[in-house]
């Protein structure tokens, strides 16, 4: 479980996160949703330590992440996988080398063991015959799969996904969403997903948190989000003609 308590972050005089208290449960896909600029990316960056919050605390299970130094955080970071919006694959490495990278850095595995693990992860994300291609040679959907394979290579306990299906066609987006959910259940990870895609919410949202102007405005399940009377949530959920038609 990951928990944030009274988390606050400002850029200059502009508050971006305002006393956010939220928890993300183990074995579930926890979604953070909200409009662009609502503060959900800042929240995720604070959770993983890419940004330092001005106030509040972050807990990874019972470990206080926000009070840790670089060395202590490194231990937690090795238990953490992250899928970035653009994949963030290393351009100079092949698909296989990208997946093997965390293993090279943090394990004492032999080359054969690392190759074996990389192939297992690539097979798990249904990516075959791409091992020796470079990121520039594969499609957006394949990049996301490789990024997922790299994120799970080191058996993480926590998985963070920032806009995992942005830039993908709806069909591929659903495949990626389902893959994340399957992996979450399979490895019993605490998964946090940042998205503004309602398809993702309806497909995989075990728990959904709505961030509005830097505040935790609403949270519940994907079924509850369709029933809520909260105006801001409704404005977000039913922003498209498709969702309004479905509601009718």
């Amino acid at each position, binding site marked *: 479980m990951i928990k944030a308590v009274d988390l606050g972050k400002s850029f200059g005089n502009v508050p971006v996160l305002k006393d956010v208290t939220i928890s993300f449960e183990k074995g579930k896909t926890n979604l953070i949703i909200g409009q662009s600029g609502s503060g959900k990316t800042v929240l995720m960056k604070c959770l993983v330590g890419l940004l330092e919050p001005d106030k509040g605390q972050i807990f990874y299970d019972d470990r206080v992440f926000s009070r840790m130094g670089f060395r202590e955080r490194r231990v937690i970071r*090795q238990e953490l996988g*992250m899928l970035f919006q653009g994949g963030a694959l290393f351009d100079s490495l092949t698909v296989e080398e990208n997946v093997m990278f965390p293993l090279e850095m943090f394990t004492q595995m032999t080359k054969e063991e690392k190759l074996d693990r990389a192939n297992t992860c690539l097979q798990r994300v249904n990516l075959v015959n791409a091992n020796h291609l470079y990121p520039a040679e594969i499609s957006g959907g394949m990049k996301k799969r490789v990024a997922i394979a790299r994120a799970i290579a080191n058996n993480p306990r926590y998985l963070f996904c920032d806009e995992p299906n942005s830039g993908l066609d709806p069909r591929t987006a659903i495949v990626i969403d389902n893959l994340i959910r399957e992996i979450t259940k399979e490895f019993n990870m605490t998964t946090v997903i940042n998205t503004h895609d309602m398809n993702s919410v309806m497909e995989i949202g075990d728990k959904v948190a709505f961030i509005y102007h830097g505040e935790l405005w609403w949270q519940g399940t994907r079924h509850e989000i369709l029933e809520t009377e909260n105006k801001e949530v409704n404005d977000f959920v039913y922003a498209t003609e498709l969702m309004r038609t479905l509601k009718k």
Partner: protein
Amino acid sequence: MKLFYHLGRYFTMIAVILKKPEKASIYRRQIIVEMDNLGLESLGIVVIISVFMGAVLTIQTAFNTDHPLLPMYAIGFATRQAIILEFSPTMVSLILAGKVGSRIASEIGTMRVTEQIDALEIMGINAAGYLILPKVVAAMIINPVLVVLSMFVGIMGGYVVSAATGVVPVSHYVYGILFEFSQFDIVYALIKTVVFAFIITSVSGYFGFFTRGGALEVGQSSTKAVVFSSIYIILFNLILTQILLV
């Protein structure tokens, strides 16, 4: 005040890159890769510029020292001294600041704006150390090799032009390049080269690592890396010459 901000951030980065590596074997492998990327790939340009500069230096010295009181071998002597003391260490470093500096800044800058550096940090890797330290070490090893090669090729350029044009008899040129040779001149040139290699890679790494934004900012970082590396090379050239030769 901005100068102090950048100086502070630069030295903080230097302290970070000098931290103990996560896995020494990976850093060693990266150093070899970077020696190839930064050094061996610059071999062609260094050789071409050195041979022509040596040739031009010989011709110019010959035309500007056309005096009966000056011995002919002074042309070879002057060419050798110019190449060893100044041209090879400083000019080659300035050329490498352009070629290697822009490469480093744009490579690391692109990694920053495409979140590859964030990915390294999320994994618990010292991103600055992993990306910059192997480049710094590789350049400090390979640049002196390039400079020694530049010295040899430059002097040979003078030899070829002497033989081809007859601006100075070859025997006089050879006597001149051997005349009162001091090994310290080579040591002085190599000390300068190592310092310049550190400046090129660390300053370019700094501008790349702290790039913010997109493609436009990567270009700006690349330009700044070349400009500031060149300025610091010229500045430290003066300082080191004062310290080592006076």
